[in-house]
């Protein structure tokens, strides 16, 4: 098997989002399929909350206070969006979330790669015990650890700073697990050849192994991004100052202050959802692969 095929296979089976026209030559794609009658309502149900959110975000306040609901706004109120930006430090929240997420993703990629490689390829004292310990943390629900973690973070003086959101999440067992599995599936001869050629372990990791790990790194990045961006409970516990809030937390305070300004609330929500949706469309394969492989882990 060629190298790339081996690596592709070891990254796990992936439900095909794209049609593979070679796969089922018998399928006749040009005949009407009764399945459309099932799929269309299903897709509609899945999308209607978002569609409705977008429509509402472009209405006036009066239009929202109308029953039956007005399905098509008489004019498009783009200024709802600018009004949201004025009424709340939305841009700030966005920036906070972005900073936290990017740093956490970068930290995970770096630290989990190092640790994953160590667990995969380096025999060191206590390796297996420590790995099991790491895996165990995957199964512990967050509420068990959140109180002591809060105390620790407070002792580190990070409460109400972005540091509280970043530091505890810089390395997670999920990334270590995925990367270790992947590294183990690579042919070890490559690394051995590089070491014989004089490369250090670090060099082997960064120059040989990581360049081959694109897909799994992308998967870890994308899943970590999603989880960090959407996290609510931890920021809720640790952040109080509106200037330091993340999007999810900020949305909550916005909703508290603007309960009846539905059109603004929807606009704010749309803005909070767009980055993740965009990332999803761009990196679909990795999201789906990440979700599917968490199934393998189970």
């Amino acid at each position, binding site marked *: 098997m060629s190298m790339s095929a081996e690596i592709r296979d070891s990254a796990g089976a992936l439900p095909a989002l794209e049609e593979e026209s070679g796969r089922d030559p*018998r*399928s006749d794609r040009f005949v009407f399929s009764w399945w459309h009658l099932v799929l269309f309502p299903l897709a509609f149900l899945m999308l209607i909350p978002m569609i409705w959110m977008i429509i509402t975000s472009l209405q006036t306040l009066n239009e929202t206070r109308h029953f039956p609901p007005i399905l098509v706004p008489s004019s498009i109120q783009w200024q709802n969006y600018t009004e949201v930006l004025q009424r709340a430090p939305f841009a700030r929240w966005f920036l906070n979330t972005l900073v936290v997420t990017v740093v956490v993703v970068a930290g995970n990629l770096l630290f989990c790669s190092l640790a994953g490689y160590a667990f995969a390829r380096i025999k060191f004292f206590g390796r297996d015990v420590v790995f099991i310990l790491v895996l165990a943390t995957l199964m512990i629900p967050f509420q068990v650890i959140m109180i002591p973690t809060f105390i620790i973070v407070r002792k580190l003086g990070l409460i109400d700073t972005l540091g509280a959101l970043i530091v505890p999440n810089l390395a997670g067992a999920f990334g270590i697990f995925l990367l270790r599995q992947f590294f183990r599936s690579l042919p070890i001869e490559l690394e051995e050849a590089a070491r014989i050629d004089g490369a250090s372990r670090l060099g082997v990791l960064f120059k040989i192994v990581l360049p081959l790990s694109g897909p799994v790194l992308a998967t870890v990045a994308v899943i970590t991004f999603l989880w960090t961006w959407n996290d609510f409970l931890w920021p809720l516990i640790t952040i109080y100052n509106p200037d330091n809030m993340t999007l999810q937390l900020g949305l909550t305070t916005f909703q508290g202050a603007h309960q009846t300004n539905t059109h603004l609330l929807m606009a704010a929500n749309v803005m909070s959802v767009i980055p993740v949706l965009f990332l999803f469309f761009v990196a679909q394969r990795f999201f789906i692969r990440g979700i599917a492989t968490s199934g393998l882990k189970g």
Partner: protein
Amino acid sequence: MPGLTFDRVSKEFPGGTVAVRDLSLAIADGEFMIFVGPSGCGKTTALRMVAGLEKITSGTISIGDRVINDDSPRDRDIAMVFQNYALYPHMTVYKNLAFGLKERKMPKDEIAIRVNGVSSMLGIDDLLTRRPAQLSGGQRQRVAMGRALVREPAAFLLDEPLSNLDAKLRVQVRGDLKRLHQRLGITTVYVTHDQVEAMTMGDRVAVLKDGLLQQVDSPRNMYDRPANLFVAGFIGSPPMNLLRAEARGGVASAGDLSLPIADLPDGDVVLGLRPEHLRPATDGQPSMEFQVEVVEPLGDGVIVHGTVSGTLVTAPSGDDEVLPRLAGERAEITTKFEPTLRPSPGERMRLAIAAHHVHVFDGRTGDVIVAAGA
């Protein structure tokens, strides 16, 4: 009891690939028919059309008098053994065998009779409580056969059933299959890419290439009278030597050979010479100078590879297009001598070419012009 008939059957896939072209073939009731050809020749597609797993683009397939084009697979009374066996992994062997009967609402005790009967015939009755994962390759193959047999179908389809077995098992199962067919007499279509299997097992063999039927005949006839260049080069091991020649005035010339052949039209031709028909020449016969290169002694003969002057034609054998093996203006040919004759490498000798053993093919179309005699 029904036979199986193909009437101008074609299969075109969406996207334009034509897998089977205008296949017309009548399989007699109880006959063991083999479809053989290189990969991509359409043999598996043809088989799947009989099973109903591929839609027929044009033409009809009939069992007996009944056209089955529009019947779903379950209504065709056909059983199939898949190349990878397709055993239900989560069911025991018994349940695998019983599944089809259960689906057709057969009462439990009747099912038990049939399943036990078939499993003892195939020698798998001590495996009935096991799961496929616990079986060896040969055992799985027999379970797959059992699943097909237990339904007592009108026709029996096998898709390369021996290809996943190791060489020794293959020979044994080949014999088992033949014996089974003799005993049960079910119309059988058997697909393989291995021409040795085809020649040893079939009542008749159908050779396919690129979706077209090349020839259908008994193994003996196919060997002795190939209808075209492809069949000539495909059937027989070591393969037939195919030499370019020019025919003029009833004489075929290739290299240093001048061979008079009866009823030979003028033009470019290809001479087909089976290795076992090439013997050291005695005086007076038409012959070619032959330089020995490699000698392979077998038990029942000696294979000698060497060169003559001339140009080979390579009958395209499918996936690997072999480049003309030329050494300068020499062509490599293979002969098969009696075991007692053992030339040495480098030796020069003359090979006798007997006209009645030569197959002459049209240089352009590949069809046979002059068939070899007895």
